């Protein structure tokens, strides 16, 4: 990822290794190779590359991973503040702007 790294030490990603069954699913779904399997358990090896998309949490059958997922999108965050909702892009429905 030549130069495409975002802010350090901000992400909410947590892994409870005790619960991990070594199924590798997190290493498969993560688009930024944040996880690796070492000694049959998942470990976080590239924490600052995490973009909090939530794919790992969603596909962890043992609920060993937690992350506050959402859109890493300034327009989406402004959208959320204006509407009093969670950060959201205006992708579906009648909206004309999109992520």
């Amino acid at each position: 990822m030549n130069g495409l790294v975002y802010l350090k030490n901000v992400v909410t990603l947590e892994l409870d290794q005790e619960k991990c069954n070594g199924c590798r699913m997190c290493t498969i779904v993560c688009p930024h190779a944040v996880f690796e399997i070492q000694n049959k358990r998942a470990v976080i090896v590239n924490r600052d590359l995490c973009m909090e998309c939530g794919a790992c949490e969603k596909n962890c059958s043992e609920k060993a991973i937690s992350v506050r997922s959402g859109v890493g999108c300034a327009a989406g965050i402004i959208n959320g503040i204006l509407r009093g909702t969670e950060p959201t892009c205006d992708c579906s429905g009648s909206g004309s702007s999109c992520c």
Partner: protein
Amino acid sequence: MHTRFLTGTSIASVPQISTVWSINDVLETIKVRWSVGRMNYKVETGLYAVGNPTEISPVFVTANFKLTFDHVRRALYGMDAWLLILDTKGINVWCAAGKGTFGTKELSRQIKLVNLDQVVNHRKVIVPQLGAVGVSAHEVKANTGFTVVYGPVRADDIKAFMNAGMKATKEMREVHFSFWDRLKLIPVELAYGKLYLVLVPAVFLIICGLNRKGYSVDLAYQDGLRSVLILLIAYVTGCGITPALLPWIPFRRFALKGLLTGWIAAILLMLFHFLGQGILENISWFLIIGSLSSFLAMNFTGTSTFTSLSGVQKEMKTAVPGQIGMAGLGVILFIVSKFISL
């Protein structure tokens, strides 16, 4: 609804689709890349046949955004396969998965709706990896009996993935954001301003007529056109040049990247004697160009493929007040500069 890609019907009267793009598909793609009709570019959901699939053929799942659909069917050239299209309201896989429309519920629903268990005798569906944001593989298995196999991130890698026995390399699993990837997205960024692209220059044009003696239409025209051009340059710097050069611009925060490129643009304009007339107007331009370029660059976080919600929130906490302050002060100084020559 677009149906021109249909080439016939396969077994069980499933519509058969072409894996080759027509001229029309190419033209539509260019249009959508420029944001024209982008929010209503959909295909009918359900099951499609690629080539002449049988009960042992693989099943690929994708979104009903036609741009997505086109890339997937083109990648399936020469294959016999099934293509299951989910209702994502015309949104691409990754964004739709983030919203949950490309998700466990819709995938389970479509598998049942098309009676997939009767169409194929295996129990596997190949879901694009980025769909994992909305799809929970173990829940789909529990709901339908089908195992979700996560395919590569990019449709172009499907063939290699299948040839390797449904195995993706590390490379296929990672999202990149190359210069070319970013260039393709810039037209949509440029179209972002919409009405503001007319309104803001118009306001500046009007302000430019102000002077100590009252109002001069000649002055509005003379100085105004220059102002409009400067604004346009600031705009393109923020949402065109900054995204294109993203990894090579210092700073991690997008707002700072935009501020820097904005100021570089301002310095260049000043060197060519194209910025303000006098110190006051020049300062006002630095504030205006900087805030505009910074704000637009910050907005590119949503288009980029590596920014986190926590990170963007942290960045915005300082960036947004800064941008508002700079823009406000900039406009005030700009107006003042019309009356005081420094």
